[in-house]
């Protein structure tokens, strides 16, 4: 059943340009020039109950803006959004009680008090009956190991500990729809995995619908079979993650360990050499003939080991953004893209 229905959604921001420096600010004070920034420019998609969908896209693509519209924080400029049969921006209490938005960079917990105090306030505000509150809290404590944390002053917690408490605060009322905006940002790899596992468990247990944005490709590939790729405020792909990878990357990767060092040229006949140094080499071979290539290599060259692998998703996605989509002169403000490694480079995704 469709739970989230977005049609032709547009969100334009009005911003004014300011030239640098004192004179620039004076000029912009006297004569202010406004222009529209098209953060989201006509997107449509439907999401069924219980689905987990990943939003992918470079910085400033419109992912966060979309989530803010879906959770009712922003009013759309145009278009229609229906979630659980509510219009988000009306912010009806019954709607707000069924959703949550978790932002990796904004907190709802009060810094001066232990997290437990904020939980108690949420219990009252969300009208959670005492026994449900106890159960919910016990479950979350169990899944997230909260027990040692909830009575410590929030500002004394580490970033990862605080994020766990934020998650708990956002889920005490057992929302049906979860919007997760960079929930693992700044966390170490172990904690990222922990949060991922938790989201998967929550989804399995309550059949909750999840929309996730993340810079870490591992988050998306571990949780979401469906991805929606957004760039410049438009959807450029919506569908199965695996299918996207096959479509964009019609090759597989052969990793070789050679018995004797060979030159790159010597390997060239067997596939596209993407990396070779001494006894290690990586080849790209067409998807359909991957096994044949491996067999040919085994007979022709002395090998210690050969593996056939799927190409890493982050590489594919960053290639997708750097290939067709990058425009030569990106307009300033919302769409700043300093360089590709920062946007979706292998290290950061």
């Amino acid at each position, binding site marked *: 059943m469709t739970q989230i229905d977005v049609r032709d959604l547009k969100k334009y921001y009005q911003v004014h340009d300011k030239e640098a420096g004192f004179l620039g600010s004076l000029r912009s004070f006297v004569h202010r020039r406004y222009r529209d920034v098209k953060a989201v420019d006509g997107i449509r998609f439907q999401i069924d109950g219980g689905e987990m969908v990943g939003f992918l896209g470079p910085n400033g693509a419109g992912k966060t803006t979309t989530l803010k519209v879906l959770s009712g924080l922003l009013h759309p400029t145009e278009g229609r959004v229906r979630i659980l049969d509510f219009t988000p921006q009306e912010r009806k209490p019954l709607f707000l009680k069924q959703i949550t938005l978790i932002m990796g960079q904004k907190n709802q917990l009060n810094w001066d008090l232990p997290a437990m105090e904020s939980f*108690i306030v949420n219990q009252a505000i969300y009208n959670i009956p005492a026994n449900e509150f106890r159960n919910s809290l016990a479950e979350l404590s169990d899944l997230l190991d909260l027990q040692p944390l909830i009575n410590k002053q929030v500002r004394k917690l580490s970033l990862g500990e605080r994020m766990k408490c934020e998650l708990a605060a956002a889920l005490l009322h057992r929302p049906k729809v979860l919007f997760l905006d960079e929930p693992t940002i700044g966390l170490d790899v172990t904690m990222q995995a922990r949060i991922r596992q938790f989201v998967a468990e929550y989804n399995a247990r309550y059949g909750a619908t999840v929309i996730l944005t993340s810079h870490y490709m591992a988050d998306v590939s571990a949780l979401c079979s469906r991805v929606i790729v957004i760039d410049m405020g438009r959807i450029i792909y919506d569908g199965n993650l695996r299918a996207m990878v096959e479509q964009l990357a019609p090759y597989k990767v052969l990793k070789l360990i050679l018995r004797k060092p060979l030159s790159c040229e010597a390997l060239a006949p067997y596939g596209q050499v993407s990396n070779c140094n001494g006894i290690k080499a990586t080849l790209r071979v067409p998807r359909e003939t991957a096994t044949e290539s491996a067999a040919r290599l085994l007979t022709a060259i002395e090998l210690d080991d050969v593996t056939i692998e799927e190409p890493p998703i982050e590489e594919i996605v960053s290639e997708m953004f750097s290939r067709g989509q990058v425009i030569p002169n990106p307009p300033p403000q919302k769409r700043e893209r300093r360089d590709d490694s920062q946007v979706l480079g292998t290290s950061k995704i």
Partner: protein
Amino acid sequence: MIRKYWVLLKFNWQILMEYRAGMVIWVIANTMPLVMLAIWISISSSAPVAGYGPAEFAGYYLALLLVRQLTTVWVAWELDYDIRLGDLSPKLLRPINPIHSHIALHLADKLFRLFTVVPLILLAVFFVPGISYQTDPLTLSLFLLSLIWALAIRFMSQYCIGLLSFWVTQSLSLNEMWYAGMLMFGGVIAPLELFPPFIAKWAAYLPFRYMLSLPVEILLGRMPIGEVARALGQQAIWLILWIGLFRLLWKTGLKHYSAVGA
């Protein structure tokens, strides 16, 4: 709703207690009426000013200090911060209007002042000779009503000013003007009675009198009951106007909200 307020009140009380030292400083800093009192006592010690001698001024300014302490509002700063830096977003996600959290914080603060600074003021009133207040039950209950409405008007008007942060980045400078207006026409610089008649008459149409001076005037008992009733009516009108403006600004402002910084 009462239960929610009770929980919010306890929550905000704990936050205030985390900042005990800061609270005490804020309370002490709020002593402009005492400065004015010193000035007026020195002026009136040779001859009374329009019927106000040192004892009358002492009675007036101690009452004003009391009202001022119990109507202190700083919500414009909170809103400005929340809106400009996007901290309003988590508050908007909850199924309760954010204003209730702000109200609860201010109520907790008033409770704190009621137990700390108010007894001190009452003690001062007791020891300063010649101070007389109207203390019959009717006057006291009208005083209390007017005090609560004064707090409500100060809160709602500052809330409206704070909400302007949806459109402009400098709502706080407007708030400074608002504050200056209150010093001038709210009875801080001088009791409104001492103003030239046409200014006093004009000031009665401004909101400032109903944010500070009116409860004091009632407590001093220098107004006939009919005039008190009329002034309370005007106070009620201001309160309703501010609540109406709040609703309008809140509704239109949210459409402008850009939820930055997340």
